[in-house]
């Protein structure tokens, strides 16, 4: 019952702000979840499948994936998550003692460091290195390029999968908390 009363009051006081908080949190959860799912997809299917491919085909496929991933749909989730997470944090900054604020702050730290920056500073440079391998490179060159790329790339992909998945769980938790309360 007390829940209902509090809601009524806060609705009357700041309905637009509540809408902004709900919207930014919803979009952040969506974008972070999709980015986590993409990393997870590599870990459980794409990378495993390509592991069975010969070097030339591995390099060509990974080059094609790294080129095609640069499209508006993926960027909306990968960069969108950063924007929406920061927007959500800003929208909740007036309630720094709420459980929701802490979960959003945790998700920001996890995704921005362990998902976004890790990708930008580790995976992307490796992708750029791989992109320089010519299609008609010698078998030795292809084998060398693959050996330098595959293991470390898959390892760091696992790391960013774990970080972004925990960020996603934290955001779902934030969705379940009332915006102005420390408990459910």
């Amino acid at each position, binding site marked *: 019952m007390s829940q209902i009363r509090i809601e009524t009051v806060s609705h009357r006081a700041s309905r637009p702000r509540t809408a902004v908080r709900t919207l930014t949190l919803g979009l952040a959860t969506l974008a972070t979840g999709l980015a986590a799912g993409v990393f997870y*997809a590599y870990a459980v299917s794409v990378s495993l*499948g390509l592991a069975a491919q010969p070097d030339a085909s591995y390099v060509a*496929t990974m080059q094609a994936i790294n080129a095609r991933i640069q499209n508006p749909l993926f960027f909306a989730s990968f960069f969108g998550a950063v924007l929406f997470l920061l927007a959500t944090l800003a929208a909740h900054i007036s309630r720094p003692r709420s459980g929701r604020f802490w979960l959003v702050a945790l998700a920001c730290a996890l995704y921005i460091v362990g998902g976004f920056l890790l990708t930008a500073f580790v995976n992307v440079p490796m992708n750029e290195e791989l992109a320089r391998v010519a299609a008609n490179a010698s078998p030795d060159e292809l084998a060398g390029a693959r050996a330098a790329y595959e293991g470390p790339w898959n390892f760091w992909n696992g790391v960013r999968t774990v970080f972004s998945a925990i960020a996603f769980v934290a955001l779902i938790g934030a969705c*379940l908390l009332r915006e102005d309360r420390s408990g459910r």
Partner: protein
Amino acid sequence: MDGFLFALTLFAALGCGVVAGVFFAFSAFVIRALASLPAQQGIAAMQAINVAAVTPVFMAALFGTALACGALIVSSFLVWGEPFAAYLLTGGALYLLGAIGPTGVYHVPRNEALAKTEPSSVGAEDYWSRYLRGWTTWNHLRFAAALAASATLVIALRVPHA
């Protein structure tokens, strides 16, 4: 909502979200990348991905979530008077009908047919281009359904209790 149903719904919401993300990867770029390769290479890569996807981790996510969604549908009838019951039913049904349904009825049979295709054979390229078109369209649907299921189940957890 009691503790067990809450935990089950939360598990299903997370599972639907992760599965949606996997489908998203294929809809957004994996298939486009494979389509841009020479057919023989693209077919071999997709065959390998289809074999590799049958790992315990991914099967647990895909079918563990399906089990949870089935249980949520049953539970929704048991607690039908509650305001969240309709969301449990909708979320569970979206995932089972929209994500698992097409996977079993559409994708798995096509993947099996592709597995039998010799990448360098005559006609492989034709089959490959038809495969890509249909597979991708139905994958967009699986993605949308899993995503909607996840959102609906999160809403179910938030609906005020009676």
